[in-house]
């Protein structure tokens, strides 16, 4: 099995908190493979877990590593990476 991995910079002004974290967890829940997120060489956590994402404490400008394995891993990693890079707090503006 191939492992897909991408390093991205958190784009949301407030970091991966509140609304951005929730949107990421919701999106991860819709994907067919399990995607994991890690910060600064820390343990990767299940991206479907809002609590785990919050516990990462990732701030705007922090680098996080998004990984997944198996069928569809490519697209799944891309989808979440894209979301993390965007300023998700801006959506309402």
């Amino acid at each position, binding site marked *: 099995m191939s492992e897909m991995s991408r390093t991205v910079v958190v784009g949301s002004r407030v970091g991966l908190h509140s609304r951005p974290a*929730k949107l990421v967890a919701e999106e991860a829940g819709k994907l067919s493979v399990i995607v994991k997120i890690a910060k600064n060489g820390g343990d990767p956590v299940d991206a479907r877990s809002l609590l785990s994402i*919050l516990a990462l404490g990732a701030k705007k400008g922090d680098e996080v590593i998004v990984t997944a394995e198996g069928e569809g891993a490519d697209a799944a990693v891309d989808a979440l990476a894209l979301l993390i890079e965007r300023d998700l707090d801006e959506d309402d503006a």
Partner: protein
Amino acid sequence: MPEELAGVPGAPGAVAGPVRHMTDAVNDLGPAEPPEDPEVELQAARDALTEVEMLLEKRSAEATNKDVAEILSAQAMMATDPALWDKIAAAVSGGLPATHAVTQAFESFKTLLEAAGGYMAERAADLDDIRTRVVASLVGSPMPGLPESSEPFILVAKDLAPADTSRLDPSMVLGLVTREGGPTSHTAIIARSLAIPAVVSCSGAAGISEGEPVVVDGDRGVVVRSPDPGLLEDVARRAEWMANALRSSTGPGRTSDGHAVGLLANVGGIKDAEVSAADSEGVGLFRTEFLFLDRAEEPSVDEQEQAYRAVFDAFGERKVVVRTLDAGADKPLRWLDLGEEMNPALGVRGVRTQRVRADVLERQLEAVQRAAKASETDVWVMAPMITTVGEAAEFVAMAHDQGLSRAGVMVEVPALAVCADDAAEVVDFFSIGTNDLSQYVTAADRTIGALSDLLDHWQPALVRLIRTITDAARSASIPASVCGESAGDPLFALVLAGLGITSLSMAPASLPLVRASLARHTIDDCRRLAELALTSDDHQLARSSVAEAAHLPIR
């Protein structure tokens, strides 16, 4: 005999009514013995989590406030969080009953979030809220939460979670009392926005019986048991006045004879720009620290411009007074080493950071100017901690060079206040920061609670110093505003207007009462009240003589 229970003011106003206690969480989890059938236990845990998820989702859908709906929906997600579930399942397999397994799993995530600090630590309280609901469901207890009542009541709780406050019906909840929590707690903020009197941190409230009539005095921060008829009458008068004031208070600040006193809001960031919806004439104090604190590098001019623009645009053509960076040893910046100081309040702070790094202020003014140019907003700039007339002139010249035509200074250092007549000749406006001015003029540290009487804005020395500043401003025909806690005091606002203050900037929640207070007095009334405050030789006497002479039901 009336008995007073001490607390801390949470939200202004006073109200009388019967007490209802919020249902407390279940504390008894039962014995931590291995369950007979772990499968059954697991299923019970799953059912309880799902029940709570559905309950929170339902509340989220019913919530009328978008922020509350968002928080509740996030809480619903947390209830069925896969990582949380893994921990619960592992604990049950390891021989724990569901109540203990759930508690343990929530606690471990709570520790993680608390360790992350800041916003995350606040979410840790959410976890407590979800956990107590799940445990109640497991042991078949009533869900902790708001009491049912057919008549309006005073709610007493340990502290309120967002899930509870979203369901608060302002027509049923007359007042709020919490046994824990402080003046900046969620409960206090919600109470202020709903205009419900609140007392927080009142540990004695636990002893009040269900249905017992009490008075909640949110101005003084006390709960009164067995209130006497005199107090009840006073409360009714205050409540009626407040309700009237809130209903009828709209538009720009005016005395009853039409003298304008601008009413503006204090704003501390982009999120706060939502206060643009509040009925104000703009922003009298836009604190820019949020952009600079807690970062590795100075924000670029572009980033600053965008952030300022977002706030300007929220206020359209109204006025926004930008205060340049106010950092110091107590508000350290990672990218600007100010070193350790014995006495941060008297150190290199505010505009004094210029001495260490002159270019930071230049770039900030450039960003403000660019954002101002691209917006419709009436943008003013001012610098904090200006001490000498020379510093004032230098800052104003710098701002004018950038094309910012309205440049002024905060008057918060007594040295500048004393030389206000000369300073008024070189600036476009004054803005008096009464919080700092009072700590400097009384040599009393703002952070020391035991000195709070010296820091009272009714101290004659402060009032007289404000007069020096307003006299200078009047002679030079420049505006003088106040942006400090004192501006939001409906009684003191009258004194300020009487001294010649041209606008007041405060927390948005304070605006309606100050507006209503001004509207009940002529400018000559205000001048007479100012004279009373000026001639009192004691702060308490100053307040009580003004309260007695003013047309307000405040004693």
